[in-house]
């Protein structure tokens, strides 16, 4: 007996399109309808004044507080101080060096992030091995460039230096610590565990205090190295412990069969880790890793307590300027928004990366 294939029919009209979506997600029964209306009301009540303050009643142009007459936000303050917020006390005629180094970094990162561009290995190698020296030269000076002491660095550029160096230095160290913690060699394992547990057990503020106040006391007379460098080392060593635990989580999620297959093919320990285990583990770790990186980015604001003028502390200092007293809110909104833009971009990029690296259902093992 043969059967007749029934014709395919379109779905009912009220289940598709905008109306269908709204019915399904916004007005799906009395409770759903009620909460939709309530939230819409709250949005109007709360957002209205905010928009009024930030945009409608705001002053955008001028050169002193006298320009702020409308009663809303005084963005003139941000505008007037933007140079300082971005570059700190870096000499005004030298800020192109900061711009150049960040544009260069952005270019390299974009090159690595866009799948179609070629020669990824070379670019990655350049970024990790050559770029740091170029950036250091540009920022610090030398070879004909006017030297700029690190205590003049500040603002957003200092925040970025702290974050980028922190991330780039702590991730490889974290990977090594994680491998060490899972090693078969008892001494390596014990040392890794001690390192991780000690650094995770102290707050970052303590680490920064130690680096800036205590460390010089232990160093011999005359030996004195840069405060920024000390802070950077403190941040990198501290974050490495966190990275290590994230990486360890990723390593543990890789099935035993992957290690065995690599062993059976005759790959050595480092080949196995670098070619097989870490690429898979790092992919699994992306969400946790980006979480740690975002944390690190925001934690750089703690350097304010050791007298480095990062974005937050330089804005805070500016709000205490008698010429601009009373505009702290604008300052903090600006800082929050800047942090948010960076953190949100990182979070979006990580989502994209997760999707792109997805290669099907993976192993069944």
């Amino acid at each position, binding site marked *: 007996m043969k059967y007749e294939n029934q014709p395919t029919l379109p779905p009912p009209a009220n289940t598709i399109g905008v109306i269908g979506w709204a019915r399904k997600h916004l007005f799906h029964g009395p409770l759903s309808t009620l909460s939709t209306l309530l939230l819409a009301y709250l949005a109007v009540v709360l957002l209205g004044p905010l928009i009024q303050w930030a945009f409608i009643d705001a002053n955008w142009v001028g050169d002193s507080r006298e320009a702020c007459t409308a009663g809303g936000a005084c963005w003139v303050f941000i505008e007037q101080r933007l140079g300082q917020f971005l570059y700190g006390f870096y000499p005004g005629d030298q800020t192109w060096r900061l711009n150049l180094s960040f544009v260069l970094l952005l270019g390299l990162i974009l090159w690595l992030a866009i799948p179609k561009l070629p020669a990824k290995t070379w670019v990655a190698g350049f970024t990790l091995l050559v770029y740091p020296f170029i950036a250091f030269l540009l920022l610090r000076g030398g070879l004909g460039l006017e030297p700029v002491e690190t205590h003049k660095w500040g603002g957003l550029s200092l925040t970025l230096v702290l974050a980028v160096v922190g991330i780039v230095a702590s991730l490889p160290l974290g990977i090594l610590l994680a491998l060490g913690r899972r090693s078969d060699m008892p001494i390596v394992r014990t040392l890794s565990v001690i390192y991780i547990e000690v650094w995770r057990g102290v707050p970052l503020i303590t680490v920064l205090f130690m680096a800036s106040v205590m460390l010089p006391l232990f160093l011999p007379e005359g030996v004195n190295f840069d405060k920024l460098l000390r802070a950077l080392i403190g941040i990198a060593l501290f974050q490495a412990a966190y990275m290590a635990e994230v990486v360890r989580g990723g390593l543990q999620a890789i*099935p035993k*069969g*992957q290690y*065995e*297959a*690599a*062993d*059976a*093919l*005759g*790959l*050595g320990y480092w*080949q196995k880790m670098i*070619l*097989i285990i870490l*690429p*898979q583990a790092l*992919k699994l770790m992306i969400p946790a890793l980006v979480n740690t990186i975002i944390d690190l980015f925001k934690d750089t604001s703690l350097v304010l307590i050791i007298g480095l003028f990062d974005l937050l502390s330089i804005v805070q200092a500016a709000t205490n300027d008698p010429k601009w007293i009373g505009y702290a809110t604008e300052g903090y909104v600006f800082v929050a928004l800047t942090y948010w833009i960076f953190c949100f971009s990182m979070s979006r990029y990580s989502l994209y990366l997760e999707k792109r*690296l997805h*290669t*099907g*259902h*993976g*192993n*069944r*093992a």
Partner: protein
Amino acid sequence: MTDTATRPDTGLMVEMRGVNKWYGEFHVLKNINLQVKRGERIVICGPSGSGKSTMIRCINRLEEHQKGEIIVNGVPLTHDVKKIEAIRKDTGMVFQHFNLFPHLTVLENCVLAPIWVKKIPRREAEATAMRYLERVKIPDQAKKFPGQLSGGQQQRVAIARSLCMNPDVMLFDEPTSALDPEMIKEVLDVMVELAQEGMTMLCVTHEMGFAKTVADRVIFMADGQIIEENEPHEFFNNPQHERTQLFLSQILNH
């Protein structure tokens, strides 16, 4: 890789002498003696937990034996990392769960070890890989990721991946146990072909049809010991040991 200078070629591919292994207190391999000649095809069967997987996993040091001697292709297996690596280079292994590398394409799975372990140029390694992928009848899947293939296809890739290292002996650890019934045949076909070409093979499997077709010898294990070994016809029609008779009646009477 054979160490012919110090050890005359005995014609033996794998030799196990008085091999014992414990998991903690549990005595998993008890005084195993086994000789596998070059080109010989061995099927190992037995109830689960009898130590058959553990035994073949000792041959390439995925498991460590604590007593006795294992000699693979003339190289004695010790703690010496160099020797372990030499043995693994000569030994291919196919796993129950395939264990393909999910982040690499089929082709990259196949060329990885030849390039990094044997230092073969990429172009040459890729040509070899394509030849083996053709032999397991999936050259058209070379650019896909393992996750996009069926179980049977994945297992065939795993076999090709092992063959790319040009091994002298192949170890199969229940290669069809994780497959859906309709995919078992495609994998067995590849294995039969391989056997007919003269590859030395040790297969842990319950595919008795395969054992009857290609095995030179069937080994029956229970409780960590080799209970009985014989050529397939005798083994299936005239099992000597009552433990073997019980096992065969359990798997064949359906």
